[in-house]
């Protein structure tokens, strides 16, 4: 007989899975809000810059939101690393002949796409939030007394290398999401055999919508659909 004390929620394998799902959904929620906010690029300079200014002026709310999303993101990353390490340890000797019947490429590369997305997030923050990688953005002329986010984004995406980095990172994000979204439903026990295949399709579609939504911005800039207010490079 075994007399082990039941493992705590965050230590139990299903608990870890639930934590991955909850924090993952929160990040998806953030991605949705971030996308809706950013798509104002298509409305125009005034709209995007006043939106950015409003966000910047809500100092307390902004930092509270940033802290919450940082904690959730950190839990997602931490548990992701723990799961990956444990799962590697669970099969010390691999098969000579390894066959995959069901598992999608996305499901098998979650750790690696996750790690690459994380490094992109760091770059993205250094690029547009802290403007460390491109300090010249700080010299942009003010737009009606506001920092000109609109011109900064366009300038950023006019650079082919930067746009390529965003394009690759967003593809990886969509790939990661394609497995993540359907997994959330299974983790919460909200699936049954009749819906599971449909759920995988819906999951892929949602991931595609995120990809198209985000990637539309660098593409619009590169195709000159959106250009600098002055009509050229600063």
């Amino acid at each position, binding site marked *: 007989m075994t007399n*082990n004390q039941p493992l705590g929620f965050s230590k139990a394998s299903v608990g870890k899975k639930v934590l991955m799902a909850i924090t993952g959904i929160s990040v998806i929620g953030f991605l949705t809000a971030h996308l809706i906010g950013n798509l104002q690029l298509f409305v125009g300079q005034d709209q995007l810059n006043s939106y950015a200014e409003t966000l910047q002026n809500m100092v307390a709310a902004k930092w509270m939101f940033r802290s919450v999303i940082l904690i959730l993101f950190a839990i997602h990353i931490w548990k992701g690393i723990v799961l990956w390490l444990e799962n590697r340890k669970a*099969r010390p000797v691999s098969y000579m002949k390894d066959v995959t019947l069901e598992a999608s490429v996305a499901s098998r590369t979650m750790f690696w796409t996750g790690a690459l997305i994380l490094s992109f997030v760091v770059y993205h923050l250094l690029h547009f939030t802290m403007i460390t990688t491109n300090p010249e953005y700080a010299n942009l002329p003010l737009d009606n007394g506001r920092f000109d986010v609109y011109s900064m984004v366009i300038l950023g995406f006019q650079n082919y290398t930067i746009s390529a980095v965003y394009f690759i990172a967003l593809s990886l994000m969509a790939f990661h999401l394609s497995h993540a979204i*359907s997994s959330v439903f299974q983790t919460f026990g909200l699936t049954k055999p009749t819906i599971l295949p449909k759920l995988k399709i819906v999951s892929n579609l949602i991931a595609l919508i995120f990809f198209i939504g985000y990637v539309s911005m660098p593409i619009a800039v590169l195709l000159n659909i959106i250009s600098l207010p002055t009509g050229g490079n600063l």
Partner: protein
Amino acid sequence: MNLTLYVWRQKNADDKGRMETYQANDISSHMSFLEMLDVVNERLLTDGIEPIAFDHDCREGICGMCSLVINGNPHGPEKGTTVCQLHMRHFKDGDKIYIEPWRAKAFPVIKDLIVDRSAFDRIMQAGGFVSVNTGGTPDANAIPIPKENADTAMDAAQCIGCGACVAACKNASAMLFLAAKVSQYAYLPQGQAERTERVKNMLTQMDLEGFGNCTNFYECEAVCPKEISVKFIAKLNREFLRATVKKP
């Protein structure tokens, strides 16, 4: 038919093990895979070579003892079939066949193709039972059970505990086995009294045994010889969440 076999040979748990190549000539397509191995072993004995050790018992597809990974597929290439029910007609002359044991930290190799699956027994001991007082046999149908629930419980109870789900899972997770064992009681009135502790205790034991975590690959369902559905993993997740919020 003539076949080339690449078989995992390992003297004991401490041995490093290696693949050995054997020729299996004049094999009848009517033989089962295990009968083919029997023939190979007879010939190895004649040649003074230690026969290949592999697990088997009923050879009827119901005991869950046979456990070979054939060309990367636990229980071989046929869907919903144990190795003992796999026939050589599914192979063709000249085939190269890789035969490996279940690979998981929680299933250490004892010898050649035999692994120690007592981790499953310990998971069952942690809660895979219903405690009943001894006494007379209760009347059949004394406890009414909706047909749908009885059917679902029976679908879960089809699990023969062979461990193919672990062998197939990229994470060597035993979640489908655990899900079947938890679900078979969760759907029945007899299982209700110990429902909350059962899922917690069995899950804890599974985690302590060193199996991996389920990350929804669904490889388990694809190879299960009893075709246990991953819907039971969804059920297990619900059971776990229920047990988390429920006061003991």
